[in-house]
């Protein structure tokens, strides 16, 4: 072994610190392999302080050393240590708890204006659809896609319309129905409404409005036959939740679109990133609501045949959502 005095400066630099680097390497490998929570107290403490030492060593080595292998090693070691020191330190339970308890309702309240716009689009669409149908029943064929109507149109008899509303066919309930309903028309609309919002709001508004048109003319058809209340009950069970979900998704989309249109003092990319924080939570809430709606549609609607009970279930669930959005995550003062 060469004695210390004859070593060149960078070799001495390495000799003094090598043991620490190797210990850091061992700690990093352990943390990566079995998770940082398995580290002992002193190991976790050393991981943090050794990481900082290693970054300092790297900065010095870049200045004083020409040893390519040493530089490559330190680069890799510091990078690996950085990744395990700055890992997300959250428990999964905490993530879920925070989302439901505070961040989701707060995001809903922050974007109340956009959500109200979403409801406005849908409401206006429904109103226009209703009035147009009352003027001429032919409008129904213009709005309603044939796949969705499923034979229910102005030419169908009142009895057949009622038969759909009070359907007791047991085949239509259960898991299969749940899956079908989830991937039905409305979920696709919600996804597109949210995603298309980025393109300057317009597609989201149009799509929500169009969805309102369909709903309005469909409702007018039943009112025309004098069974509006029955349809109301049939729709309320899941519709309160499902249509609200579409409006909320529309609100999220509008928020993204507004960031693109009016970025304010930020660049568009930055504004989009900031708007995304709340918009994503809105999308998650909408997804959750669609899931609940599909559950209600797949099970509750077929099991409950009484009109009043249907109203109670539908609007009761709606009230629960509203309570969550308005009361959740308020800080006690």
């Amino acid at each position, binding site marked *: *072994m*060469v004695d210390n005095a004859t*070593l*060149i*400066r*960078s*070799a001495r630099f*390495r*000799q003094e610190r*090598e043991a620490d*680097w*190797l210990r850091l390497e061992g700690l990093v490998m352990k943390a990566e392999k079995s998770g940082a929570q398995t580290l002992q107290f002193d190991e976790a403490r050393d991981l943090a302080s050794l990481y*900082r030492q290693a*970054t*300092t060593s*790297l*900065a010095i080595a870049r*200045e*004083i*050393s*020409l*040893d*390519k*292998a*040493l530089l490559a*090693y330190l*680069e*890799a*070691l*510091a*990078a*690996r240590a*950085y*990744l*395990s020191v*700055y*890992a*997300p*330190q*959250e428990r*999964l339970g905490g*993530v879920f708890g925070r989302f439901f308890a505070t961040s989701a309702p707060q995001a809903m309240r922050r974007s109340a204006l956009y959500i109200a716009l979403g409801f406005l689009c849908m409401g206006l669409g429904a109103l226009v659809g209703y009035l147009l149908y009352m003027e001429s029943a032919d409008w129904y064929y213009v709005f309603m896609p044939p796949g969705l109507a499923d034979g229910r149109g102005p030419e169908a008899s009142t009895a057949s319309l009622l038969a759909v509303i009070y359907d007791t066919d047991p*085949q239509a309930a259960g*898991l*299969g*129905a749940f*899956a*079908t309903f*989830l*991937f039905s028309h409305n979920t696709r609309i919600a*996804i597109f409404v949210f*995603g298309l919002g980025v393109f300057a709001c317009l597609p989201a508004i149009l799509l929500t409005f169009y969805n309102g048109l369909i709903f309005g003319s469909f409702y007018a058809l039943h009112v025309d036959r004098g069974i509006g209340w029955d349809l109301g009950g049939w729709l309320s069970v899941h519709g309160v939740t499902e249509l609200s979900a579409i409006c909320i998704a529309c609100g999220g989309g509008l928020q993204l679109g507004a960031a693109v249109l009016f970025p304010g003092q930020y660049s568009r*990319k930055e504004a*989009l*990133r900031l708007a*995304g*924080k709340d918009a*994503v939570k809105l*999308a*998650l809430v909408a997804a959750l609501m669609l899931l609940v709606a599909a559950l209600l549609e797949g099970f509750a609607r077929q099991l409950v045949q009484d009109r009043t009970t249907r109203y109670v279930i539908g609007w009761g669930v709606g009230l629960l959502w509203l309570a969550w959005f308005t009361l959740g995550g308020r800080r006690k003062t």
Partner: protein
Amino acid sequence: MTRAQKRAARAQSAAQIIPPEGVPLTLPIAGVGVRIAAQFTDIFITGAFALSILILLGMLGLTGVSALGGLAALLFFVIRIPYYVLSELAWNGQTIGKRMLKIKVVSHTGGPLTTHALVLRNIMKEAEVFLPGTLVLTLDQNTQIASWISFLWIMMALAIPFLNPHRMRLGDMLAGTHVVHLPQPILLADLARAKPDPAVSDQKGFVFLSHQLDHYGRFELQTLESFLRAQQQPGNSASHKQRRETLAAIVERIRKKIGFAQAVPPADHLAFLQAFYNAQRGHLEQRQLFGDRRHDKHYSTKDTPGE
């Protein structure tokens, strides 16, 4: 600067991340190919999981044949999204596929990965690839326009990573993340501390004068380092002969360049290079401490020696 050099410089600056400590770290950007491979592994895993649940449901008689297609799509969907988000949360930006291929999601700005960023980039993955992908796969005579639109959308989403140096897809841009290769720390022995060969250890050491060390720069030194490290690898007899010839050529070249008058016998060739490496490295490192960085042997002809 040539085009290739420009591209290399851009890739190098893209690979730098500045952590809160302020020392730039190099994390090489993962290419599109390796990410697609990881993606296929993950799709395979989640698909297999959904399939096994589906078979279980079928055996318990909970589902009819007619609802099978819808249920399969639902299961795949419901398993896939939490799988990506939760595994990236639990394993610090790695899914099982990413772990197998040794790549990782990192925050673009150097901070820790947030839950929000991971949720966002994985939800955007649905909007970018999976949903339009499903539309294309269920090609239908009636919905041709929708299929073409979603096909074009997927093409656009897949083209975006090629257009920026960080290989970010749309979701990465929104979430402020990109994907890197995990660097492997391998500590090689320090050449400057290598033991002298016992066979020649009784020889007197080679002495280099200061002006003899002024001929080379960092590039030549590090090339010599790579060569000396390669000499330490064991080789067969055929390559052994070739090695000796290369060694002799290099020694001759250096001796001529620096004006080293003393003859070096073939047995001492390696020891000579070792000694020269030590001396040259010590010299260059000392010059560097004085602010005289020498990138290569042309350092003196350049206008700005400090560059």
